[in-house]
């Protein structure tokens, strides 16, 4: 059984409105008292995942849980919390999953290191293949020379090929 978001019909309406006006603001913009707070607010809501529609950020999600989370962020900003405190607040309740960019930690090390390891493996095997090909080519061209030599020796100027 699928778990439905609170006020789904409302979310659908917002979605329809979105389809109708692709360039309009997805979410009613929140005004913070100062430009500095506004910038931090905007940055923060883009960094957190909406836990219900998991591939969207809080900034783009129309579901009401995302609205509540934006409200929570707004309140914490107004209360003077730092970005790090707000991040810790959400991570301690929802886990690293809520961050689009997980921090480098023991638990996430494989996530960050795997691409590098794969790149290294790829580079090493590419180097290996290229070097093997290179020796193959020289050997083959050597063979050809031998062949033409043979041809020259055996032949009387006839075109064998």
């Amino acid at each position, binding site marked *: 059984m699928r*778990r*439905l978001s609170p*006020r789904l019909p409302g979310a659908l309406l917002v979605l329809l409105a979105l389809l109708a006006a692709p360039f309009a603001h997805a979410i009613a913009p929140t005004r913070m008292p100062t430009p500095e707070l506004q910038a931090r607010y905007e940055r923060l809501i883009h960094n957190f995942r909406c*836990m*219900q529609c998991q591939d969207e950020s809080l900034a783009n999600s129309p579901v009401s*849980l995302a609205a509540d989370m934006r409200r*929570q962020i707004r309140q914490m900003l107004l209360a003077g919390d730092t970005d790090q405190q707000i991040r810790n607040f959400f991570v301690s*309740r929802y*886990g690293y999953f809520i961050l689009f960019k997980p921090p480098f930690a023991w638990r996430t090390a494989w996530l960050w290191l795997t691409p590098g390891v794969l790149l290294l493996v790829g580079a090493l095997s590419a180097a290996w293949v290229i070097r093997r090909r290179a020796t193959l080519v020289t050997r083959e061209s050597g063979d050809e020379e031998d062949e033409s030599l043979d041809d020259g020796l055996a032949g009387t100027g006839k075109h064998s090929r």
Partner: protein
Amino acid sequence: MIRYFVPLGVFAAIVVLLALSIHQAPRKDLVPSPLIGKPAPSFSLPSLSDPNEKVTSAALRGHWYLLNVWGTWCISCRIESPELLAIAHTGVVPLIGLDWKDSRAEAMAYLHQKGNPYQQIAFDPGGLEAIQWGVYGAPETFVVNPQGIIVYKYIGPITPRAWAHDILPRLPAGQASGS
């Protein structure tokens, strides 16, 4: 000759890895809670039935309880409702409701119609208390021990099987009967 089998071997290894991963992969709609083993958030919320009364975490200290997050808008909560009534009937553990993003009148009518499994119900129309618990959908059920530690979280509607296999064994009553 062996080198012709190297790509095949790598391919087979990838197939095995992906096949295992598919079965091992956690369901994307079940996000593990980092609150397991941590103290439950302390709260003091108005009671659903009486706005002047409070439901507080302090008063719940010293007892096992289940905190069940629900709302009248939540279809799965309706499915879960008979099982909650059955759990309440066993008397093994008190159910505390957290009525999430709901209206008082609708919630009261719903409980009147379906029956009320809860000992107390905290009312959270704004949804900020649910965020404290890391809730991201309903229903969700937290098992809290007498020290106020969250022992377990069950996501989705509780089925008789989930109660018997996942929740009851984590309660002292279940452990006593199980051993």
